[in-house]
């Protein structure tokens, strides 16, 4: 069961978005997020919504998968909305007891909610259509210029992909250790949240020891296979831009210009 866990919730299907270069998708996500925070009128949000809806349609990923990603941030969303709603000063609309809701507050809360929802859907669209492997490759390539500033780009990308590979293995290991401790009378089930968290502590020590041992073995295996950092290294699957990637950049540019023009400077 634990073997099947994949991080980054990739949704396997064949679409243009899936086939796009990961760099395009990364850049597009960043541009989209920035545009959400630049825009501050209704038309801007409408453009963003249409753009996002089109992308979801093209990606062939069922919409419910994007909503799934939202469950985990509902709480954050609520806090943001509530704070904006009640704590923004301005012209009061409703007022009861000590609480006043202002017109500015309403509009701020609405904007905040729309921004966060779009942000989460937009970024989960990227992770749903890109394998984690592709994503790390894309990041490595995009951040390559930072190498000149002595940022260890290759090393970070390598660490990320190794971490991804070892997540299922370590989960399985956790499961094993847990079962071994349950067999000797450990209790992970009962008690409140704090007690449950405390009972996890004895799990961590053996897990860490085994993780370090694995890291040691892996480092040796990598060296035995001539690994010596990013230099002199060739790629089995190099990232190459295709025609569709250029077109995607074009569409993205059109969206960015439109969204900033209509969403920020255009006044009705």
């Amino acid at each position: 069961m634990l073997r099947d866990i994949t991080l980054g919730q990739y949704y396997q299907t064949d679409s243009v978005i899936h086939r796009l270069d990961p760099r395009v998708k990364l850049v597009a996500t960043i541009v989209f997020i920035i545009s959400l925070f630049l825009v501050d009128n209704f038309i801007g949000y409408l453009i963003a919504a249409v753009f996002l809806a089109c992308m979801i349609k093209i990606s062939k990923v069922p919409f419910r998968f994007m909503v799934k990603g939202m469950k985990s941030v509902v709480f954050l969303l609520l806090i943001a909305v509530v704070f904006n709603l009640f704590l923004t000063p301005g012209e009061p609309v409703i007022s009861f007891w000590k609480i006043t809701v202002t017109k500015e507050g309403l509009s701020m809360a609405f904007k905040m909610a729309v921004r966060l929802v779009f942000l989460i859907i937009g970024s989960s669209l990227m992770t749903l259509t890109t394998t984690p492997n592709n994503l790390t490759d894309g990041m490595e390539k995009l951040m390559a210029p930072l190498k000149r500033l002595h940022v260890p780009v290759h090393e970070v990308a390598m660490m990320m992909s190794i971490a991804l590979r070892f997540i299922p293995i370590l989960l399985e290991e956790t499961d094993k250790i847990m079962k071994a401790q349950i067999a000797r009378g450990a209790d992970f089930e009962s008690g409140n949240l704090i007690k449950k968290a405390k009972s996890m502590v004895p799990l961590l020590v053996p897990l860490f020891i085994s993780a370090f041992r694995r890291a040691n073995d892996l480092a040796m295996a990598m060296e035995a296979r001539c690994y010596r950092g990013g230099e002199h290294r060739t790629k089995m699957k190099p990232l190459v831009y295709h025609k569709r990637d250029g077109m995607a950049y074009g569409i993205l540019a059109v969206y960015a210009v439109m969204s900033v023009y209509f969403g920020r400077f255009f006044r009705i």
Partner: protein
Amino acid sequence: MGIIEAKKLIFEYIRRDEEGNVEGITRAVDEVDLDIKQGDFVAVLGHNGSGKSTLAKHLNAILYPTEGTVWVDGKDTADEKYLWEIRQSAGMVFQNPDNQIIGQVVEEDVGFGPENMGVPTKEIWERVEESLKAVGMYQYRKHSPNKLSGGQKQRVSIAGVIAMHPKCIILDEPTAMLDPNGRKEVIRAVRALNHAEGITVILITHYMEEIIYADKAIVMDKGHIAMQGSPREIFSKVEKLKELRLDVPQVTLLAYELKKSGIALPDGILTNEELIKALQA
């Protein structure tokens, strides 16, 4: 000169206490001489702590000799400038398959070695295909290694080493964590490589059944080479092997006991068929 040669190889593990003072010295490998020819299949045996894994790590320049010299393909392993050439010509497969697979897809893992060596992209793909076919894992090339069995994972690790086009493969207890079926799979793949491609194989193991096919067997004990010779020669000395706390294959043991009770049998019987033939004769 053979592909691998060692002269008076000594390796000492130095244990230190918290202040860095020497607490004790353990001599893991003690004056070992080796001479292995290109294309040989050599098995190294020994119980735990006999120094066989330490010896293996010298053949790939992961450890350097405390005293003495090791040459791989004529190059001194202690010489820094040959390091990567040595690691390319002597590939190494380790015990735990999970801790040596780097890629998240089988084919990517096999490509890892050639990528590190700077092989051009097109050639990497050719090498990956040919090495996966050599170990019979080509149909799994798109799978995630996490979903393979132990024997399959270990065959992927072997493919990963072959893709670097080594002259010699050192397998450090590759079957210790596998079930009997997985063990057979791996040994079959290793033998096929040795026969078909002429790659020198050094198989470190404590399973006696696995050394039957070797050209030469080396038995280690307390860092020394205790016995060496063909598997038949080794297995004919049942008493000596027992002294070294090693098991002999069941057939060999049976033949030995039969002989002791007065049935005329040759020494060092290795397979069931041989025993049947000898008994019928």
